[in-house]
């Protein structure tokens, strides 16, 4: 089974998602909107095609669903109108709308807090910590770590004395 061609947002999907950044992400993340939307494409790329298609269908429904009430697509709504429209889906009695709103929110907030600026803002700096943990293990416990690495390869036949074939020369 081979992977499908790498997913990229369509123009429409990008516009709809971009319009939702101020609704879903914290105000301090709004300048990162393009990066957040791009990151969502990376996440969607890893999903199976069926789930990705379901998401995009939901997004299209969200975009068009604004027409009856606002006479505009969701991608064009700004400020309070964008907020009210999303909130209506979030609290809808139709489970499908709730699911679409929730999945959009989940993927966008994931991508939001994957931005280095947002991780820094909440004090999450895993890179230096990994480096420190690695250094500590290799300085304080080097001998034990090496002993375990050797133990992994040491002969210890499950049935001592039984070898079903000769080892290759």
């Amino acid at each position, binding site marked *: *089974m*081979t*992977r499908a061609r790498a997913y990229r947002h369509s123009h429409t999907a990008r516009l709809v998602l971009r319009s939702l950044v*101020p*609704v*879903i*992400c*914290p*105000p*301090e*993340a709004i300048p990162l909107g393009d990066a957040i939307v791009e990151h969502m494409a*990376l*996440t969607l*790329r*890893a*999903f*199976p095609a069926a*789930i990705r298609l379901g998401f995009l269908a939901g997004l299209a429904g969200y975009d068009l669903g604004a027409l009856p009430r606002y006479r505009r697509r969701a991608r064009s709504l700004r400020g309070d109108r964008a907020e009210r429209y999303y909130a209506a889906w979030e609290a809808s009695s139709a489970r499908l709308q709730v699911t679409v709103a929730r999945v959009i*929110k*989940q*993927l966008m*907030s*994931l*991508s*939001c*807090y*994957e931005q280095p600026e*947002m*991780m820094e*803002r*909440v*004090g*999450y700096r*895993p*890179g230096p*910590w*990994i480096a420190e*943990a*690695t250094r*500590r*293990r290799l300085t*304080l*416990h080097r001998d*034990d*770590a090496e002993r*375990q690495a050797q*133990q*992994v*390869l040491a*002969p*210890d*036949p*499950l*049935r001592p004395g*039984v*070898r*079903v*074939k000769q*080892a*290759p020369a």
Partner: protein
Amino acid sequence: MTASPAPAVHEAGPTRNVITRHDHRGDTTIAADVAVIGSGAGGATIAAELAEAGFDVVVLEDGSYYQTRDFTADSSAMTRQLYRDGGSTMAIGDPPVFYQEGRAVGGSTVINGGMSWRTPETVLARWDRELGLAGIARELEPYFERVERRIHVAPMDPEAIGNDNLLLKRGADAKGWKIIGNLRNQAHCTGSNRCAFGCPTGAKQSALVSYIPRALHYGARVYADIHVDRVTRRGRRATGVVGTVHGSGHKLTVHAKLVVAACGAIHTPALLVRSGFRSPSGQLGRNLAMHPNVKVVAIFDEDVTGWKGVHQAFQVREFQDQGLLFAAVNLPPALLAMSFPHRGAALGQLMQHYDRMVLAGMLCEDTTTGRIRTIHGRPQAFYQLAGADAANLQRGVVLLSELLFAAGARRIYLPFHRAAELTGPDAARRLLERPIPPRGWEVVSVHLMGTCRMGTDRSAAVTGRFGEVHDAAGLMIADASLFPTPIGVNPMETVMALATRAAGYVIDNAARFLAA
């Protein structure tokens, strides 16, 4: 048989005999004594044991080959690389249950928390009593010991335990509840807390750094990036495997005397079905257990910085006999943010407390089972959370909240829709006044079991007690799909012990298997 030229192999150090998608130049046909499908807890273990005994072993893995140096701080990239479908796999039900499976050389052991527990005696007694697996507890004992030695099962170094786990212990001690130090397959874990994204320090002794190098050392070949299309067969006898190389679409054909399916409880039954194997028991794909998990988030006044320190240093065992285990886990901010219902400014304000949060999870031993259906050759899990399990989860959330308040939590956020935050233990207890229906829960799973249950009665089980598929020849199973019931603890060590025992069975009957 005319074997086409084997693709080039990596020659440097431990990657010798690992063949990746980049090494294939066309369709390839090879031969081996044993073809093992899957390189996780079951596949890597049986491959290493059989290779050391002198069998010519080939391991086929759907995912790619990464090494410790490839595991970075980029959680999102690691998730895309190491998790099946980028972590989006889901069992259909109401609520749906999102589950996680590793998809890399080393399988789910690369992304699990490393908890290493033997199958509880009560579970083995039930398998003995009700499922015809007489004497299994005594039989497994030496295999548990062997596995524990190989993957270095040990308590945590105390200085590596982080504040989130210490707070969990503080709460359990305050309540007078039983809490134990977790045993994990690690050699001096220094608490990078990156278990779920590939251990970047090499401390976690996943199959990637234990059984896989051992298998390679004793001559096994590992083919990464291979989707196994089917097990080939002649009548009821398995004769090998046909797979497709990811990316290029080249075919890899393996002729083998014994095929071992170790693709996990989701994929093994689907592989058997699409290969044309059936089980007269009617149990193939059934009895899926998932150990439904939920989590709560507690906010403390003090600094927690839960991402510094070992993953799940303790387990609260007070309610184990009621099917509930509690532990503190930690998630990077992105994964935590996606699980909160908050958005906009409210999300930002909540996430400002990230370093004062303790994320605690609970595992529930399920009383119901789901099933795997094979649709166009692909598995789809169906699982309906039982009312009794939802009630148990509800009770568990209350108990866990009480524990966290006893540890000093100020607020607690709950794992169901539109739940108000809790501000004290009384509010937690009031949760019990009204049942939360199953569909209201947000449930995940990392323990997938059942679907090819073992047992001596061929009319009730898919395989025999060693994993040999009933009514087939040359075909074994060595993964958690063998479990006849959920086990209530982390399944990795049980899978490894069963795989080691299966290897012993193959060695003892080598003449029969090699004569095929």
